[in-house]
């Protein structure tokens, strides 16, 4: 299975649900994480309209939803590559426009790092994790943080569940 759709699925699962489903974890080849620390005070429930809005933007600018929903098993890599190349550029542009994405730890992957925080939501220790909180370790993944979210104001009159309108051409 192509890695790109999988990466997108994981990205959106984290973005919208904050958690990976068991199926996704199996697809990703991740062992279920041993102990989940209890969630702190419950965050306010996300406004589903904003999640849908971001999807709608990514679909509008880069056709991302079309791509994720398409069964691409039968296409050869060449064909997928050609489509993804242009889709990827545009999706990245839109992400950069509406979210300012920054690494959680701005370090070099593979280098020894001491995290400034032990918040399990921001830093996850993996591997031979000792019983007490470790000082640091090898930075494997820098993480991502949305430093700024600047989504356009929602039009209250508009049906937020429409992610992309149907298109009818008059010939």
């Amino acid at each position, binding site marked *: 299975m192509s890695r790109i759709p999988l990466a997108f699925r994981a990205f959106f699962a984290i973005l919208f649900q904050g958690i990976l489903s068991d199926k996704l974890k199996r697809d990703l080849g991740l062992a279920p994480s041993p102990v989940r620390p209890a969630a702190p005070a419950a965050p306010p429930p996300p406004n589903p309209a904003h999640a849908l809005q971001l999807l709608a933007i990514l679909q*509008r600018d880069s056709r991302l939803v*079309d791509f994720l929903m*398409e069964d691409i098993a039968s*296409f050869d890599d060449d064909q997928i590559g*050609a*489509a993804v190349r242009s889709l990827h550029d545009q999706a990245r542009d839109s992400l950069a426009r509406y979210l300012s994405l920054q690494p959680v730890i701005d370090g070099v992957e593979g280098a020894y790092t001491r995290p400034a925080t032990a918040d399990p939501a921001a830093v996850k220790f993996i591997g031979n994790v000792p019983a007490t909180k470790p000082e640091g370790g090898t930075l494997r993944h820098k993480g991502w943080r949305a430093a700024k979210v600047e989504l*356009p104001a929602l*039009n209250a*009159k508009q049906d937020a569940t429409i992610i992309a309108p149907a*298109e009818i051409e008059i010939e």
Partner: protein
Amino acid sequence: MEPRYVIGIDLGTTNSALSYVENRPGADPFALPKVELLGIPQLVNPSEMRDENLLPSFLYIPGATDFPAGSIALPWDPQPETVVGRLAQKRGIENAGRLVSSAKSWLSHGGVDRTAPILPFRAPEGVPKYSPVEASRRYLDHLRHAWDSQMPDAPFTQQHVLVTVPASFDAVARDLTLKAAEQAGYQNITLLEEPQAAFYAWIERHPDWRERVTVGDLILVVDIGGGTTDFTLIAVTEQSGELSLERVAVGEHILLGGDNIDLALARLVADQLAQQGTKIDNFQLQALWNNCRTAKEKLLEPGNKKDEAPVTILGKGTGVVGGSIKAKLQRADLERLLSDGFLPAVSSNDMPARQRRAGLQELGLPYAADAAMTRHLARFLRQQASTAEHGGVRRGPSGLACPTHILFNGGVLNAGLIRERILGVLNSWLAEESLPPVQQLSGEDLMHAVSRGAAYYGLARRGRGVRIRGGVPRTYYVAIESAMPSVPGFATPLKALTVVAFGMEEGTDLRIPNREFGLVVGEPAEFRFFTSAVRKNDQPGDLIEDFGDDLEELAPMEVDLPAEQNTADVVPVSFETVVTETGMLQLWCVARDGRRWKLEFNVRERVAA
């Protein structure tokens, strides 16, 4: 009251921009004025306003099914009738029948009534239409509101505003641009030629410019925008011991630009696809056109050594991968198209194919008949040769005008390869004249230079910085019909009376000697009006007979003497020419007793005729 800011507006064919600079009367005259770009708030998607550096010059006329209710509201207009800017451009690709584009080219098109609602040109029945003047008014109106929303403390109408026009715009097109600005609520407007503005931007960036050029130098400004190509020559002269600049020539209006290159590339790729059995429709061609522009820019980036760039057209339906059409733009094709089509290495005697001038004007814009920009440049430099001496134009032995420096402007010329080709061709001409190669004046920010330069010039008019002297860039004539019986099938031979000489300076007026006309009171009198960019030595009052192809007819001028009591039916008048401080050309009829009537352009009449 002194305005707080000077505002420069580049009203472009495909993109407009606004720059501004603070006007501080007491400031050190040698301190560098700081010119800034205004972020222009505009709809980029339905319900989404964003500030962008450019306002795409597109007007979309929405129908009931185009946008969700309330999604095109602007901060200054809850229910706009039309959409301007990025969203208009985007939506127009999907529904071209409601999109007005290139309004500026229509503004300079003498074959149509430019004040009549004719755009979108191919709109389906029932879609409201707008005149080229009205479309331009809407862009200017948007810019005024954009300013007021960004600079609430300095109302737009209290600032000094400069609007740029192509140097090749004739008196009618300039007049219409001014009208559009006035109708958009502008006050305090000055028009400025774009290539001059680009040169001012260079001066603004190079305070030591006096050390970079010397007396006798000739600077060629090559301005290639999305839809037009414009040439101007500026001579470096000396006046009372100081370096001074004089605009000595402007080219004809050439409707040929970067969009033509991109479309030619798209057609080329579409042909290659067709040979492989893949047909694409009009909508996909639009997408391909856009992708070819991006691919061209990538291939022409400095350091890019790739042989090809992908120009994939994504599938139209939900099957984005399955439906996508893979195509590639080959570097070899791009280079061949540039070297054979748009920038061929021609000799300086090679003239472009003549524009068809049929009796019945073909509908649509009069695009250049010859796509070779280098041939248009050859003609421009040759044309300067065909006139007698005009101060400051440096020439080679063959009479070709030979620039010492070149300044590039316009987004197309961001590409090094294109600049090098133009330099290569020009230098080969100079070598034939046994002259050294031309030096390039390094332009920066080719997309915004015009508006920046306009703002700088506004300050120059207020005493800070240098001013280019230019005057009227063309010669103008009024036709006088010969006293000969008309013969069926032959037009009555015309004589042309020179009313404005080339180079007539701003802020001057002149009575045309030795010519009086009897004007009938109470009915409009019409004069056919002609211009020439080639004949530079005709003096006011000269009567020209055999002008061949040198003269180009403009919209007629009209004057209506109101009937008054106690006056004769026929009033003898002579012409007086005025060039206002802001560069606008006016013709007046003056009676012997000093009464004056202004002649107005009549852009309607000619179409009906």
